[in-house]
């Protein structure tokens, strides 16, 4: 039995897992139209590589990864590209983003699926292939998987952790996936281990998922993977907290778990990796929990790009008192502004909201400094102080009190007896600080430019002054010169005047010396005609009709 180290704080909200965990994962039927966003991961959005009207096959590349931290996007089914245009996407901002709209032809014709031989290939090449397969973390953060599988600058990462904690209430997609597809998850983990050079592999699951624990235990039996059952305590599934829980090591502030030799992947990502490597299938579908105020909460394997409204309809249309949808869990999720948004790689769960299930918080009262928030903070922050500083817009103080170590898990807001939306205040403070830093950088650049300009003007002024002084000195010297030189100068001036006069008289400088004789002759003829004309114009005939 592995010794667990625990982490500070944490909460245990009502789980609400059984609503959706009892039914198996159902494949979602193919929608008529799919809207596939090009930005479904952390990093640069993929670049569209299809044109409206173009026919695409299932799994065909439609958006190419742009740069290292990026991931490709593929057609979830075969059909015709209708448009490449901005469309509402699931994002807290509610802003539309560039999407490829595909009309399904219903034939589900695949591209050629080429599995990746990862064992005898250069790891860098394998990682590039994974990027082209569109793999990103399916736990919700959607960080490109190939980046996380690069152990550099370390030669390897000693500990690989498969995260099956799923600590947020309501969500059960990982639970069902572990129950139904444990061997695939283990196969994916083997690939991860190979690429990372990990010595140890841990599968961590919260103790409220006995069926998943049994299934994963069975799948791990012929491996040296260690199955670790962790206590159900939110946010045990958060990377830094899970690292601390399993190893006792704290991830340094501003760092990642790899800084202490731990790399963590969601079990869903391992499954997707197995599909990509062993079956050559890019990431074009995922398991989504549809729960909350719907008639039959259930998990669905939904194609990326499926409209939310159609997905929710599969769970038996939402009840009449539904007020909206949450993407993610009730602790860290966010509101979806419309049900027209598509399923994306980050969508682990959709919860239909109602006042009955999620009563609106009563009006916030002042903070009474009861420190319940500090007692549950997994980072050991003093949320009541951060709140105070954020409210007072004392952002410097907030930063001094480690605002940027906040993981926004929501534990503080969950326990606050004054019902203060604490995390909103921290996000506000963070974005204000970021905005100020951007402004400061811009101002710094502008100031640098301005100072450089002033310097340049100053320099030019100086140079001009110097030149003038030199000239003045020179002319003084000339005035004092003896006559012969002055005569020469006068002669030179005279010559210049003559030259000018000659030019005025029409004698152009001769640039015709090198021309062949016939050309010269031609020119001479033209000149002669011109002279005649000129003469004619100077002395016009008296009696022209």
């Amino acid at each position, binding site marked *: 039995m592995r*010794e667990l*180290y625990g*982490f*500070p704080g944490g*909460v245990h*909200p*009502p789980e609400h897992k059984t609503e959706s965990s009892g039914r198996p994962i159902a494949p979602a039927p193919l929608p008529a139209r799919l809207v596939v966003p090009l930005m479904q991961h952390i990093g640069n959005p993929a670049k569209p590589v299809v044109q409206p009207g173009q026919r695409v096959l299932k799994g065909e590349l439609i958006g190419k990864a742009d740069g290292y931290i990026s991931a490709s996007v593929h057609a979830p089914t075969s059909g015709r590209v209708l448009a490449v245009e901005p469309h509402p996407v699931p994002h807290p901002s509610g802003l539309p983003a560039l999407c490829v709209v595909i009309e399904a032809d219903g034939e589900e014709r695949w591209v050629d699926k080429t599995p990746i031989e990862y064992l005898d290939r250069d790891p860098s090449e394998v990682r590039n292939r994974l990027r082209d397969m569109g793999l990103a973390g399916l736990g919700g953060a959607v960080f490109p998987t190939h980046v996380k599988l690069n152990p550099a600058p370390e030669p390897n990462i000693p500990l690989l952790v498969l995260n099956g904690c799923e600590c947020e*209430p309501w969500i059960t997609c990982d639970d069902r996936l572990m129950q139904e597809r444990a061997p695939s998850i283990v196969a994916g983990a083997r690939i991860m281990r190979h690429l990372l050079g990990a010595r140890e592999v841990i599968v961590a699951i919260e103790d409220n998922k006995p069926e998943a624990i049994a299934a994963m235990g069975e799948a791990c039996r012929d491996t040296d993977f260690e199955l670790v059952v962790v206590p159900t305590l939110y946010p045990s599934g958060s990377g*830094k907290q899970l690292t*601390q829980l399993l*190893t*006792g*090591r*704290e*991830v*340094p*502030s*501003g*760092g990642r778990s790899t800084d202490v030799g731990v790399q963590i992947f969601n079990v869903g990502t391992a499954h997707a990796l197995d599909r990509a490597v062993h079956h050559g299938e890019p990431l074009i579908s995922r398991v989504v929990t549809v729960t909350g105020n719907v008639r039959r909460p259930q998990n669905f394997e939904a194609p990326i790009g499926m409209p939310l409204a159609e997905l929710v309809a599969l769970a038996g249309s939402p009840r009449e008192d539904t007020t909206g949808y*949450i993407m993610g869990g*009730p*602790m*860290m*999720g*966010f509101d979806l502004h419309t049900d027209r948004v598509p399923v994306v790689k980050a969508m682990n769960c959709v919860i239909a*909201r109602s006042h009955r299930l*999620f009563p609106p918080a*009563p*009006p916030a*009262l*002042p*903070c*009474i*400094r*009861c*420190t*319940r928030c*500090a*007692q549950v903070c*997994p*980072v*050991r*922050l*003093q949320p*009541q*102080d951060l709140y105070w500083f954020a409210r007072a817009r004392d952002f410097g103080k907030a930063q001094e*009190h*480690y605002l940027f*170590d906040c993981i926004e898990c*929501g534990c503080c*807001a*969950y*326990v*606050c*007896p*004054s*019902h203060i*939306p604490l*995390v*909103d205040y921290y996000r506000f403070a963070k974005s204000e600080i970021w905005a100020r830093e951007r402004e400061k950088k811009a101002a710094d650049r502008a100031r640098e430019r301005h100072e450089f300009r002033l310097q340049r003007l100053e320099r030019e002024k100086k140079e001009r002054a110097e030149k003038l002084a030199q000239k003045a000195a020179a002319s003084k010297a000339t005035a004092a010169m003896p006559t012969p030189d002055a005569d020469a100068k006068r002669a030179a001036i005279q010559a210049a005047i003559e030259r000018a006069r000659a030019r005025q008289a029409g004698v152009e400088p001769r640039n015709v010396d090198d021309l062949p004789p016939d050309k010269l002759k031609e020119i001479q003829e033209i000149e002669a005609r011109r002279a005649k004309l000129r003469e004619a114009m100077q002395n016009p005939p008296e009696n022209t009709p």
Partner: protein
Amino acid sequence: MTYISQPASVGLIMGKVLLALGLGIAAHVAYFGPAILVSLTLASLTALLCEALMLRLRGYAIAPFLKDGSALVTAWLLALSLPPLAPWWLVVGGTAFAIVVAKHLYGGLGSNLFNPAMAGYALLLVSFPAHMTQWPAVDMLAQVHLSLPDTVVYLFTGHLPAGVTLDAITMATPLDLLKTQLKLGHTVNEITRAPVYGHVGGRGSELVALAWLAGGLFLLQQRVITWHVPVAMLTGLFAAALWFHVYDPDRYVAPWFHLATGGAMLGAFFIATDPVTGPTTPLGKLIFGAAIGLLVYLIRTFGGYPDGVAFAVLIMNMAAPLIDTYTQPRVVGHGPQKSGKP
């Protein structure tokens, strides 16, 4: 965004505090008569009225803030600290000062620097010292028992029933008596043989203190308060008393006597634990509590007042922000840490 929250509210917390006070109030009535019920009622009405008035003046919604119960907690704590036979205007004046000045003029719920109940108490103690000593005699020692109507008449008019003197219904508190008798050169042992003393502290009042302790344990169990402040305060008081008691048991009374008398228990569990006016860090709470315990002992033993909970709390209220500044816990991922498995 967090869409769910624990079924907790400021009103619920304050309600539990009031509930926890119930047992002590019952013990109080049993041993010292019904006078305390009158002052509790008086203080409650004054507090609610002042709270509503101030909320209105400050342009706040009245209903949600009145319902938070914080004004009632202030009122009850002040009333329980005052001598139950104090005249009505003392209770009303003290409560009004606590709510209007100490609470709302400092920014209202969550913003006040000083514990409102203790600020009110301190004001009354320095302004009307004579009225602040009218403690009723404990039931078994009282020569006359005042009925509830007689008590009300006395509190509002100052008239006692015919033939009853004030001395017949009041007596010096155990701490008071100890202080004055020590000055006269008696030893602790001689003094505590007097009838006002019980097994550990004052007769009757030691059982009221036990009831405060029980109420405090209820608050701990309900997680309304944390253990830090009460444990630190009682330990600080006990340790200081023990030190001097061991040094000279004739001049310095036993540490358990200090825990069982005066405002020690009420202060440790209900007053010093006020979250608004105390520090927020765990270490800060320990320092805060221990310093209050120490100050209570110093004031009781060497100061001019028989008890010192109010002044000790007010002094440490001033120090709370400073304590917080210097006791910030180490944030995860910062600074030295214990190393886990290699």
